[in-house]
C-alpha cells in the first residue's frame, strides 16, 4: 500500500509541476497577477509531494519491502541500515528521483528566499524550474518508476554494488546533484531574463548567490567523488578522465567561467549575452552528464546503470531543452544584451580570457568524452581516447590560466594601469623562482614537481600580496567583503591544488610486489612488513585482512589492515588501507594470493607512497569554501537596485584609493 502512495505522490507532483510550469509564465506574459501568484504555492506543493515520495522510498528500503522491485534489486537483509539509505540512489530509478528531489529543494529554497524579487520575474524563474520538473517527473513515471512492484515477492533482495558500500558514497551523489541541479537555477534566471526581454536589469545580481552555491556544491561533489575513487577503487588514482567523471567536470569548468562572467555582468553591465549563454551551457552539460551516466551509451568504468531505452527519452528532452533555450537566446539576446565596451587592459578582458580558456577546456573534454560516439558514427571503428589526450590538452589550457590568475584582482574595471601589475608580477615572480630553486634541491630532477612549486607560489604570492594591499589601503570593515574573501579563498585553493597535483603526480612511488609473510619491502623511505593474512567478517561480507606494519628507520609508524572482501553475493571488492597525513599518504591494497588455495602464503600487494596527495582535495575544499563565502555577499540580498552602477564606494576596487596607491 505505502509504495503506491509514493507513486501517487509522484503523479500529484507531476500535475503540480505542470501547473507551476505553465500558469506563472502565461501570467507573467499576460500580466495576470492571479496566475503569477500560482508560482510559489505550486512550487511548495510539488516540493511536498516529491519529498513525500522520497521519504516513502527510503522507508521501503528501511523496512526491507522487497515487493518493490527496486528495493529488491538493490538491497538485502544483510545490508546495514545506512547503506540501505544510500541504496536509494545506488541505481538508476532512485538517482532520478534524487535528481527531482534536489530540483525541488532548490525550487522551494528559491520560493522561500526570493521575496524581494519582482513577482513577474520570480514567476518566470519558478515556471522554468517547473517545466524542468515536468520533464524529469514524466521520465520517472513513464520509464523508470522506483515504486514498481515485483510479484511474487522475493524472500531476500539482491545487493547494492559493493563499490558503492563506502562512507564516501553516502554523500557523494546528493552533493554532486546539488551542484548539477543547482545550475538549473542559473538557467532559469537566464531564461526568465530572456523571456522578460530585459525588463529587469538586476537579474544577474539575484542569480549570482544561487550560481555560486551550486558551483560550490558541485566542487564538493567532485572532491568527494575523487576521494572515493582514491580510497575505494583500490588503484590509488584520484582522477581517471573516465566519462562519468568528465560528465561532472564539464559543468564545473563552465561553472567557473559562469561565476566570473556573472560578476562582470552584474558590476559593469558588460558581456550579458555571454553570461546568459554560459548559464545555458552549464545546465545543458549537467543534463548531458545525466544522459551520459544513465543511458549507457558510453563505456565507462563506473556506468552502473545502463539501459538505452531511457537514453532515447533523455536525448529528446535534451534536444528540447538545449534547442529551445538556444532558439530563445537567438531571438531575444540581441534585445536583452547590450554590453558595455571596455579597454583591452582591464579586468573585463582578464575575465574574458580566463572564460575562453575554461570553456575551451570544457569543449576539449566534451570532444574526448564523445569521441567514441563520433568514431562510431563515422565508422572509424571502436575508438576511445586515452587519458593522455585530456592530460596534455588540459595542462596546456590551464597553464595560461594559472599564469594570469594573480593579475585578476589587480586589474581594474574598465581600464587598468600597467604599473601595479608589473610590481605584483615582479614580487610574485621572484618569490616563485626562489621557491622553485629551493625545491629543485629537494626534488632531484622532477621537473613537474619544481614547476608545480613555482606555479603554486606564483599564485599564492600574488594572492597574498593583494590581501596585504587591501589590509593597508582599506578602512576596517571594508577590507574583505564576503565576495572578495570568497575569491581570495578560491584562488588560494588553486595554489594548494597545484601543489597537490604536481607533487603527488611526480613524487609518488607506486609498487606492486609479491610478499611472503614476514618479508619487508622498502618504498619511498618506508619499510612495509607483511605480517600475513587473517580472516574477518562484516555485516554482509567476509574478508582476508592483511596485516602490514609500516616502519621508518626501525620504528613502527602504523599497522595497516587492507582487505579483500567477498560480499554475500560473491562479488569481490578490494578495501585499501590508508595511513593519511598532511604531507604524505601511505596506501596499501591487497592483490590476490599467489596460490589461490593458500591464503597463508605469499600475496601480491600494492604499496604506494604518495606525498602531498591530500592537498588535491584540500585545494578543492578551499575552492568550495570560496563559492559559499562569496554567495554570502550582503549586496546580493539587497532590495531592488539598479544593476549597473558606476564603480562606486562599496565596489571591490574603489578607484579613488587605487589611484592614491
Amino acid at each position, binding site marked *: 500500500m505505502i509504495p503506491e502512495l509514493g507513486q501517487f505522490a509522484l503523479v500529484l507532483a507531476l500535475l503540480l509541476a505542470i501547473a507551476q510550469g505553465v500558469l506563472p509564465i502565461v501570467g507573467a506574459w499576460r500580466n495576470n497577477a492571479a496566475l503569477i501568484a500560482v508560482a510559489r504555492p505550486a512550487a511548495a506543493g510539488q516540493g511536498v509531494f516529491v519529498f513525500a515520495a522520497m521519504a516513502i522510498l527510503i522507508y521501503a528500503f528501511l523496512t526491507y519491502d522487497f515487493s518493490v522491485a527496486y528495493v529488491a534489486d538493490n538491497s538485502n537483509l544483510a545490508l546495514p541500515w545506512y547503506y540501505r539509505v544510500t541504496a536509494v540512489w545506488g541505481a538508476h530509478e532512485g538517482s532520478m528521483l534524487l535528481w527531482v528531489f534536489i530540483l525541488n529543494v532548490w525550487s522551494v529554497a528559491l520560493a522561500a528566499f526570493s521575496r524581494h524579487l519582482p513577482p513577474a520575474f520570480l514567476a518566470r524563474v519558478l515556471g522554468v524550474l517547473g517545466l524542468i520538473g515536468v520533464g524529469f517527473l514524466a521520465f520517472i513515471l513513464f520509464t523508470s518508476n522506483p515504486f514498481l512492484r515485483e510479484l511474487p515477492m522475493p524472500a531476500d533482495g539482491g545487493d547494492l554494488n559493493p563499490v558503492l558500500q563506502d562512507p564516501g558514497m553516502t554523500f557523494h551523489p546528493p552533493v554532486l546533484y546539488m551542484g548539477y541541479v543547482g545550475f538549473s537555477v542559473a538557467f532559469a534566471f537566464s531564461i526568465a531574463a530572456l523571456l522578460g526581454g530585459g525588463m529587469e536589469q538586476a537579474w544577474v545580481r539575484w542569480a549570482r548567490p544561487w550560481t555560486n552555491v551550486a558551483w560550490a556544491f558541485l566542487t564538493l561533489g567532485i572532491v568527494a567523488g575523487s576521494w572515493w575513487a582514491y580510497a575505494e577503487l583500490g588503484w590509488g588514482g584520484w582522477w581517471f578522465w573516465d566519462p562519468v567523471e568528465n560528465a561532472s567536470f564539464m559543468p564545473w569548468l563552465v561553472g567557473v567561467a559562469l561565476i566570473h562572467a556573472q560578476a562582470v555582468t552584474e558590476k559593469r553591465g558588460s558581456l550579458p549575452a555571454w553570461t546568459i549563454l554560459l548559464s545555458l551551457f552549464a545546465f545543458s552539460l549537467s543534463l548531458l552528464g545525466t544522459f551520459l551516466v544513465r543511458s549507457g551509451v558510453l563505456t565507462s568504468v*563506473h*556506468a552502473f546503470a545502463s539501459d538505452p531505452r531511457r537514453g532515447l527519452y533523455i536525448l529528446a528532452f535534451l534536444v528540447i531543452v538545449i534547442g529551445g533555450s538556444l532558439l530563445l537566446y537567438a531571438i531575444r539576446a540581441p534585445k536583452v544584451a547590450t554590453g558595455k565596451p571596455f579597454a583591452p587592459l582591464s579586468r573585463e578582458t582578464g575575465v574574458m580570457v580566463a572564460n575562453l580558456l575554461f570553456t575551451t577546456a570544457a569543449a576539449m573534454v566534451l570532444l574526448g568524452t564523445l569521441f567514441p560516439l563520433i568514431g562510431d558514427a563515422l565508422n572509424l571503428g571502436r575508438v576511445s*581516447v586515452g587519458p593522455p*589526450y585530456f592530460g*596534455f590538452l588540459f595542462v596546456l589550457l590551464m597553464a595560461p590560466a594559472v599564469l594570469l590568475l594573480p593579475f585578476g584582482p589587480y586589474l581594474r574595471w574598465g581600464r587598468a594601469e600597467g604599473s601595479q601589475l608589473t610590481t605584483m608580477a615582479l614580487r610574485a615572480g621572484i618569490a616563485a623562482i626562489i621557491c622553485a630553486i629551493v625545491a629543485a634541491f629537494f626534488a632531484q630532477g622532477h621537473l613537474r614537481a619544481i614547476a608545480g612549486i613555482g606555479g603554486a607560489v606564483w599564485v599564492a604570492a600574488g594572492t597574498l600580496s593583494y590581501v596585504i594591499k587591501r589590509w593597508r589601503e582599506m578602512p576596517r570593515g571594508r577590507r574583505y567583503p564576503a565576495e572578495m574573501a570568497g575569491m581570495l579563498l578560491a584562488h588560494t585553493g588553486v595554489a594548494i591544488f597545484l601543489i597537490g597535483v604536481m607533487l603527488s603526480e611526480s613524487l609518488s612511488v607506486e609498487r606492486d610486489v609479491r610478499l611472503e609473510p614476514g618479508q619487508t619491502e622498502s618504498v619511498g623511505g618506508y619499510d612495509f612488513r607483511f605480517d600475513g593474512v587473517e580472516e574477518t567478517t562484516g555485516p554482509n561480507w567476509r574478508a582476508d585482512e592483511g596485516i602490514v606494519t609500516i616502519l621508518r628507520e626501525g620504528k613502527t609508524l602504523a599497522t595497516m589492515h587492507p582487505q579483500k572482501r567477498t560480499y554475500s553475493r560473491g562479488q569481490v571488492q578490494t578495501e585499501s588501507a590508508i595511513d593519511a597525513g598532511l604531507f604524505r599518504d601511505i596506501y596499501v591494497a591487497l592483490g590476490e594470493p599467489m596460490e589461490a588455495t593458500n591464503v597463508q602464503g605469499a600475496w601480491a600487494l600494492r604499496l604506494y607512497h604518495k606525498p602531498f596527495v591530500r592537498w588535491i582535495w584540500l585545494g578543492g575544499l578551499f575552492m568550495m569554501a570560496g563559492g559559499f563565502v562569496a554567495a554570502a555577499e550582503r549586496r546580493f540580498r539587497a532590495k531592488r537596485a539598479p544593476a549597473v552602477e558606476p564603480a562606486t564606494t562599496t565596489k571591490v576596487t574603489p578607484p579613488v584609493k587605487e589611484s592614491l596607491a
Partner: protein
Amino acid sequence: MNPTRKRRLAIVISVVAAAIVAVGLTVFALQRNMSYLFTPSQVQEGQATQYKSFRLGGMVKAGSIQRATSTLRVSFIVIDADGAMPVEYTGILPDLFRDNQSVIATGRMDGARFIASEVLAKHDENYMPKELKDAMAKAHQNKKIDDTAMKDTPK
C-alpha cells in the same frame, strides 16, 4: 584602414590563429591517444597490424590463467568465437578478473603474444561493455554462431 577596422582585423586574425592552433593541437593529441579495440580473431586476421598499441577485448579462457610463483607475471588466453590470443601481464589484476569473464587489455603485440600494460574486467556481474559486445558480435557475424551465450542479462 581606419582604427576601428584595424582593431577588428586584429581581433579576427587572432581568433582565427587561436582556432587553428587549438584545432591542430587537438588533432595531434587525438591522433596520439586514439586507441582501437579488436578481438583476438580480428587481430589474427591482421586488422591490428598498423597499430603499435591497441586494446584487446574478449573472454578469459577457462583454466588458462597461470601465475609465476616468484614474480607478479600472469599469463592467460583471451578468446572470442574463433580466435585465441595469449596475453601476458605483470601486476595486480582487477577484482572481477576470473575465468569466463570479459576483459579489455591495453597493450601491444610481441610476436604472437599480447603484452598488456593494463587489464580491465567488466564492472559488475551482468554488464559487458557495449563496445566489446559490438566488436564480438561483428566477429561472429560471418560464423553463424549462437549469440545467446554472449548476451548480458539486463536487470
